[in-house]
């Protein structure tokens, strides 16, 4: 697929993610979802563009705001939505919920409710790829807030020393919950932290799908070429509150609206049209199909069975006989 073709596909994926989040929000309001649900709307260009460059056997780790990463990595929205509802048909059979979706078949080693918790795991998957001599890469998605966790530092140092095929994608959406980046983070651009590891660091407009795509391609190619890790900072914004019940005392409606003007989907659509890569009808059609896909996922999830409490102790340990 050429970059141009991919862009249309990225557009499709961004729409699926957006619809997924809108539905999730609505379901939460209807009490059909419970728990901590962190929506990805506004940040779609990041997951969609980065994952468009990955194969099924490439790895990602994700964070508490993980629906977008999961869908972009190619996972079935039905099982994702079912997991949000805690259903037996969910990726985790209802054990994990929104913050713990994983899909090993698609290389998604899991969302994570511990800020920064997935970063070393992606690093280890990159180590594994390197030791096994494959061309796989491993991408860690995390927020600006996570870049202040010790594990971020340890992981990037390790990856740099070992020249691992890893890409660290920091989605800087301006806040860790209510705390603005300038109040928690000693540098305005998190990408400069790459200097502490002697690796490339790049800031990119996270609402610009083509820019993210181009930067991620450089990073991924570097990783596949054995040249080591990259830190990629995507500046973006989340549209919803930190979680579905957030009173959002820390930002103004105007600020949110201003960012909505910079909608990554709108922007990519304009670009696709301007460059003649797709017709308005085709894009409308993609959007409609996205809505339908997600609506079906909601249907599937709602009609799926609850897990059986009698099986609650299953899966603490792998009990099977033979090794992998």
């Amino acid at each position, binding site marked *: 697929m050429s970059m141009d073709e991919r862009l249309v596909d990225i557009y499709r994926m961004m729409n699926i993610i957006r619809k997924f989040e809108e539905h999730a929000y609505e379901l939460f309001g209807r009490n059909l979802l*419970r*728990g*901590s649900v962190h929506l990805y709307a506004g940040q779609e260009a990041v997951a969609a563009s980065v994952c468009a460059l990955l194969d099924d056997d490439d790895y990602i780790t994700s964070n508490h705001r993980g629906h977008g990463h999961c869908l972009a990595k190619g996972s079935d929205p039905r099982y994702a939505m079912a997991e949000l509802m*805690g*259903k037996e048909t969910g990726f*985790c059979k*209802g*054990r*994990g*919920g*929104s*913050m*713990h979706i994983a899909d090993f078949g698609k290389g998604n080693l899991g969302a*994570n*409710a*511990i*800020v*920064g*918790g997935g970063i070393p795991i992606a690093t280890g998957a990159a180590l594994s790829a390197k030791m096994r001599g494959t061309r796989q890469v491993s991408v860690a998605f995390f927020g600006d*807030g*996570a870049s*202040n*966790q*010790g*594990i971020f530092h340890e992981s990037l140092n390790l990856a740099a020393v070992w020249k691992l095929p890893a890409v660290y994608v920091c989605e800087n959406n301006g806040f*860790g*919950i*209510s*705390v603005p980046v300038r*109040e*928690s*983070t000693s540098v305005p651009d998190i990408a400069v932290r790459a200097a502490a590891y002697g690796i490339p660091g790049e800031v990119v407009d996270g609402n610009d799908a083509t820019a993210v795509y181009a930067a991620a391609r450089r990073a991924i190619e570097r990783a596949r070429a054995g040249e080591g890790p990259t830190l990629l900072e995507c500046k973006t914004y989340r549209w919803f509150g930190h979680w579905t019940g957030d009173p959002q*005392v*820390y930002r103004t409606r105007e600020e949110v609206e201003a960012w909505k003007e910079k909608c990554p989907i709108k922007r990519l659509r304009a670009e696709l049209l301007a460059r003649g890569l797709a017709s308005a009808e085709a894009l409308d059609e993609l959007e409609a199909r996205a809505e339908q896909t997600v609506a079906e996922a909601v249907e599937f999830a709602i009609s799926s069975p*609850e*897990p059986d*409490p*009698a099986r*609650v*102790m299953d*899966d*603490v340990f792998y009990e099977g006989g033979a090794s992998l």
Partner: protein
Amino acid sequence: MSTKTYAVAIRDTLAEEMRRDPAVFVMGEDVAEQGGIFGCTRDLYREFSKDRVRNTPISEAALVGAGIGAASTGMRPVVELMYMDFTYVAMDQILNQAAKIRYMFGGRARVPLVIRGQQGIGRGNAGQHSQSVEAFFMHIPGIKVAMPSTPADAAGLLRTAIRDDNPVLFIEHKALYAVKGEVPDDPEYTVPFGSARVVREGRDATVIATHLYVDKALRVANTLMKEGISVEVIDPRTLIPFDEQTILKSVAKTHRAVVIHEAHKNAGPGAEIAATIMEKAFDELDAPVLRLGAKACTLPFNLGLENAVVPQESELLDAVRRVCYR
């Protein structure tokens, strides 16, 4: 007396202690404008400024470490951990540093540090945001452990914690925040550590319960009353120090005991309590001390599963019956 929620009792106590002593300050993620995710520091920054109500980066280990450094040098920090599950990323600073400094340095240091936050189930937060952590801190010596189950105890124990010259892990429960109760208005109201509360007197069996299980035990006691079983309910309130006396006295009367908590049963707080009762009151026991706690699996997201993992009132009912009719 005022009627207030557990969360407000905590906030008011923080405010009063900050007014009383300029050395007291609060730091944690989202404690200023946001007032803490659970509202326990709501509006405090308005009165005390963001200097004394500090938003922090998401760096729990450094946060606790900074608390230790500040506490060792004349301040009395109250560090909020948003979820007690995050003690794991700060475990070295809590257990290897805060808890050990005084002893390791030959008694020449004091670390008046409070680490507070909530734990437990009830909001569908799943495996990494629903754990009960008290057992760890009962095992490694040097840090006190408080677990208030009512607004009044939240206020009284927190005040004691802040005034204590030792590190204290102050464990709240997320499902208690909205619970209302009478709280003394006296800004000197304290509940001493190491004094259990006999929540309800009884003759036939002792139930030792913490956090949510105090109320559940009361309900079970009321039910069993109708069967003619008189249950004494005790809330230890602090696990370190632990009020052995009150519990042993009760067991000497009832000859039967059940311990119940939300933490995992396996190697949980109840194991220590049960083993201690056995060691110190074996001849008083007419039945084994039974323990109820969460099953040995990660806390699941799904509500039905979550309820299947933590002990239910019906199980406590059964357990008390079992120790009584044997």
